[in-house]
């Protein structure tokens, strides 16, 4: 229960370029939401893009540059902070004030 909660549809910045994919399977290994699958042992494919939370694990670990995603924190207070200060949304984990993750 709960694993099936879904967030907004069609918003993720995840992009997959199957041309350069070698099917190494690293993206399947790292994605915490099973967004990638390997199709018939050849190449990766997106199984359900809307589950993507933009953590960036897949893109960072794809040695072949087949994935791009605008990774960041999906945290309202961090984003509001970013809007107010004009900087990148940053999670307040390092200051005791704001324990957003």
């Amino acid at each position, binding site marked *: 229960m709960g694993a099936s909660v879904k967030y907004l549809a069609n918003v993720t*910045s995840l992009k997959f370029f199957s041309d350069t994919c070698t099917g190494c399977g690293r993206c399947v290994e790292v*994605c915490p939401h099973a967004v990638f699958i390997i199709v018939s042992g050849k190449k990766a494919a997106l199984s359900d893009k809307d589950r993507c939370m933009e953590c960036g694990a897949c893109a960072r670990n794809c040695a072949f540059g087949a994935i791009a995603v605008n990774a960041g924190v999906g945290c309202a207070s961090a984003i509001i902070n970013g809007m107010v200060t004009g900087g990148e949304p940053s999670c307040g984990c390092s200051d*005791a004030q704001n*324990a957003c993750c």
Partner: protein
Amino acid sequence: MKNVSCCGPQTKDTSDNLPCCTKQEAPEIGFIPSIVSRVSAEWTWMDYLGQIRCRVSSFRNSYTVKPGLYAAGNPDKNSDVFVSANYKMSFDILRRALKDINAWILVLDTKGINVWCAAGKGTFGTDELIKRIDASQLEKTVSHKRIIAPQLGAPGIAAHIVQQKTGFRISYGPIDARDIRRYVEAGYKATEDMRRVKFTVWDRLVLTPMELLPALKGYVLYALLIFFIISLKPSGIIFKDGLANGLPFFFLGFLAVLSGALVTPLLLPFVPFRSFAVKGWIIGLFFTFLGIKNITIATPTTAFYVFSWLFFPLASSYIALQFTGSTVFTGMSGVKKELRFAMPVYISTAIISFGLLVLFKLNQWGLL
């Protein structure tokens, strides 16, 4: 019993290597294998106490373990190497999961932040891992080239770059440390289930204190403001009236906090719509309805009702939206989209609500 706990009674065998309760800088020179710290897989009551305290935000940052290489059990040259963060809770969870397993634990300097959060920030990252592998002379400690990193650390670590630079090949372990044994026994293979992050009612419940605390802080400010406004009389400030007449506001406000910070997170999958702001608003509406039905209002003016129906559900919505910071499935693009829509609503509502309060006052004073 050996332990790595701090701020309390310590046994002397390991305490020297594990100073904590202060921010600990990474040691300049690496540990050489002969002085690797040995840790026990058993949790002492201090560890349990520590876990409870770690959930409270103010303690979360000073609760660190010194970075470096640790031995769990009696590892040798062939034993596995697990990577962890120097947030004590991350380290403790791993150490407990390795009960009866002889292994090495390589603790990265993540400034006392948990794996997932540090990976997002990049402190649990490629460079730090490479540096730590070198500093601890891992290649002399073990004869193999395998490292097991937590899957939730993957956003910070480019496995192929670590392999290029150090020769060590990273496998990502399961998300839940409790699956480590099964993962190892299956030949370093995680089932699909082990790779997926869960978000159970229990997970959400332990996170709600993080939502309730800041929300309650806001509530205190709100209550003081209301108290002051209500007490204001043409003849001066009369606090006795403030308390009595303010009660509906205090009560409904408190319900909005509960609704946004506790009930919405708990019922998350069962509340319709995907937007957190909308979920929080719906639950807030319901609580406002319940609240208004169950209180007697001394001066049931229109201004009061309009204020209540407008303000409290949206307060709940705003608080619920903050929960996106604790979830494991809300991405930045989604939250930004919600905020683009919701922020103007919140801000204009705050302004209108204040206007209504003034109306409410004028009504009360018989000036309207």
